[in-house]
């Protein structure tokens, strides 16, 4: 199996590479690239994302043909894709970080700043928080409810259709922290930084 981590020159993806490399060892052929042809022909995609919603979307668009290739892969051909952090957020129609920015529009919804109740909750939401599993998800196989995952973000994805939500986490309100819609998977938390339990999420995705 060939898995591609999309390197679109936005943010730091070293940790994603390190963790996937650790889990993939000897089982999966891992490639880190922005080469459209390689992306087209692989079996699974990992779409990381760090920095602002706007900067990530802008970076995707800078690589000619990338957005269309990803859409064909995930939406037309329905092959498995995992978005991490802003990688997940970009599934939305629109994001409001820095400036109103159009997302990929794969899962209807928006990305807004977490309501921190006038400063009662510090932002960014940084650290380990428990996930509350809302529905069975393939990437949560053998993962217990209330497992701890590592978060770093100030914005949250709010999907229109709540049935895509696979887990939430409690920080000022119930924040969406993972989604599953058909072949699309996304985590707001960082599985690559979430210790052994995070590596298990990665393993589940690679085993799909």
């Amino acid at each position: 199996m060939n898995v591609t981590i999309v390197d679109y020159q936005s943010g730091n993806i070293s940790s994603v590479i390190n963790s996937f490399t650790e889990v993939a060892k000897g089982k999966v052929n891992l490639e880190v690239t922005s080469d459209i042809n390689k992306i087209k022909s692989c079996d699974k995609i990992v779409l990381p994302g760090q920095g602002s919603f706007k900067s990530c979307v802008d970076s995707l668009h800078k690589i000619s043909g990338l957005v269309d290739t990803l859409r064909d892969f995930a939406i037309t051909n329905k092959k498995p894709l995992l978005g991490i952090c802003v990688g997940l957020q970009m599934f939305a129609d629109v994001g409001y970080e820095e400036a109103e920015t159009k997302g990929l529009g794969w899962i209807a919804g928006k990305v807004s700043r977490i309501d921190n109740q006038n400063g009662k909750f510090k932002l960014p939401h940084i650290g380990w928080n428990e996930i509350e599993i809302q529905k069975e998800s393939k990437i949560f196989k053998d993962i217990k409810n209330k497992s701890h995952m590592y978060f770093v973000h100030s914005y949250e994805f709010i999907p229109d259709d709540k049935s895509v939500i696979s887990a939430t986490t409690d920080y000022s309100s119930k924040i969406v922290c993972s989604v599953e819609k058909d072949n699309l998977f996304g985590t707001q938390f960082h599985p690559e930084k979430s210790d052994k339990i995070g590596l298990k999420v990665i393993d589940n995705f690679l085993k799909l």
Partner: protein
Amino acid sequence: MLKNRIIPCLDVKDGRVVKGINFVKLKDAGDPVEQAKIYSDGGADEICFLDITASNENRETIIDIVRKTAKECFVPLTVGGGVRTIQNITDLLLAGADKVSINTAAVKNVDFVKEASKKFGSQCIVVAIDAKKVLGNKWEVFTHGGRNKTGIDAVDFAKKVEENGAGEILLTSMDKDGTKSGYDVDLLKTITNSTNIPVIASGGVGTLDHLYDGIVKGGASAVLAASIFHYGEFKIKDAKEYLNSKNVSVRL
């Protein structure tokens, strides 16, 4: 519910872990990659490296340590010491750091914090503030590993770095660092009350109770400690179990 983080800090000089008393006397405490792995396996919520050599010719050493550690530790890794340019940050992040901590360069030019957080995202920009009590409830910012006075008020500076995009503040009391007499709780309380970003408490931990004070009395989101973990007095697990027994929520 968000958990309070316990962060062991490894002060690294010329490729070895050291821990000083009041920033000066240094004592060897081992290999940084090995230690980081022990901490990560032991349940550390993050690992922090502080490169106290930080001269330009030695930057490769810390980058190499980060590279090796990042391949074995799958919890967040913060690296500080001598971070002065966008290139320094790029190098550390490419080597596998998740966050960088900026100290002197932030004091010299707060626009650097702004530029860095714009380029890499606030989530990876930590500003380290070394503060020393001047009089009453006033603290002054020091730089260069605590050697230089700046005349800048620590509270004003904390607010300023927040406005400029810092994602976290790593707050070290220089009066307390290395003394094992506990955090400067008044300093912590003052800074956590004046800012809306997470504050990591640092400097002075000698007992597990000090960790409790940092979180509960000081309002810190995370507690950083070095020597109590390095010399085997306590394991990360001991610290977490202790805090948990006192109803402080931690990742167990």
